């Protein structure tokens, strides 16, 4: 139980930090990094829940799901970065057009 609580709290904290940064920053690269921090937080909470199961070690099914999630997250990050570079090429700014004046 010791590890579980610590990592679940850290995971929830990281999710909230990432969500704050995602809404506060306009720079798209910062938004992508914030999304990655949020994803790490979610995975950690999931892993902490998997670790609560008693008996023969941790549950392998959530672990497999998290590995799938990590790969999907890197695919989404690569696509988001390509979109960001395209937005910069079109508008000259690495932010969404309606957020430039804000």
């Amino acid at each position, binding site marked *: 139980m010791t590890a579980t609580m610590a990592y679940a709290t850290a995971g929830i904290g990281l999710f909230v930090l990432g969500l704050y940064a995602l809404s*506060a920053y306009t720079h798209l690269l910062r938004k992508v990094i914030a999304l990655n921090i949020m994803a790490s937080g979610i995975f950690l909470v999931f*892993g902490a829940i998997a670790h609560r199961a008693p008996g023969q070690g941790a549950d392998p099914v959530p672990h497999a799901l998290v590995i799938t999630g990590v790969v999907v997250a890197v695919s989404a990050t690569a696509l988001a970065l*390509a979109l960001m570079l395209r937005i910069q090429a079109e508008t000259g700014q690495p932010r969404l057009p309606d957020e430039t004046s804000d």
Partner: protein
Amino acid sequence: MDVMSLAANWTFDGLLALALLWVGWRVLASTNLFKGIVFFIAFGLLVALSWVRLEAPDVALAEAAIGAGLTGALLLAALSRLRRRQDSAQASDQPLDAETSRTARLSLGTQALLIVFSAVLFVCLGTAFLSLPPLTPGLGPQVAEQLSASGVTNPVTAVLLNFRAYDTLLEMGVLFLALVAVWSLSPAPAQLVTAPGSILISFVRVLVPIVVLAATYLLWIGAYAPGGAFQAGAVLAAAVVLILLAGENTMPAGSTWPLRATLSLGLGVFVAVGMSLMGMGRSFLDFPTDQAGNLILLIEVAATVSIGVTLAALFLGGQPQRGSPK
């Protein structure tokens, strides 16, 4: 467990959790984006360490290779392309402080509201976690029961490639689609690095064979111990990225079909195995027990090669141009 080692465990987990939060905060709050990304890579390694503590070595390997390593490389590559374009646009009216302005110029009211909202959310989520029903056995016992029929002895690989093979098949599809989308957005930059130093080039010559060997080991051991196609693919991608950084970023002048075939190999073999099982009167991806080990290995070898090349192609950040000059 005696009191001393229990206390040591508590201290370690507590400190690691605090370090996660602090480094996560540094990633998001550092004024300099480059510094933030370096912190992000360190953050990924701390997350990998947490996975070891949560008894998930497979996830720790994936997080270290993909979450910290490749995502970090992707972010650094994107940052350098952003800056290069910004430098070339400097003469015009582009403000260069774009990335140093830490937050959007939000009004103080909005910012306070956001902070209050975040704090409330933290408390709510924490309460939700604490009020989860007490310990349940989860799916671990069922996996352990069926493990002997899966063809492998590592439970995580059994779940990934046998019990929940659909997930993994669709995940390969996601990876493939992401690359198709990235390719359709822009061509790859003609020049990746200005001039690779001789240290990098000789370093790459020594390192690449070792990295390829490590990837093969991870792939093979995945059937019995932590490891597997995704970790091996990510390590393989690191080798390809190193070669790209050393200046070998031109496509062969001929057809791009060999590259395209390699990229779709993993998905193709996965679907072909599933379909031929259907032809034998079984359902899609329902492996016969005596052949499961071999079929999983076949799928994993193809998947590793495709994952490695796809992740490296994502790092390149666009469709490689046929025979483009260096």
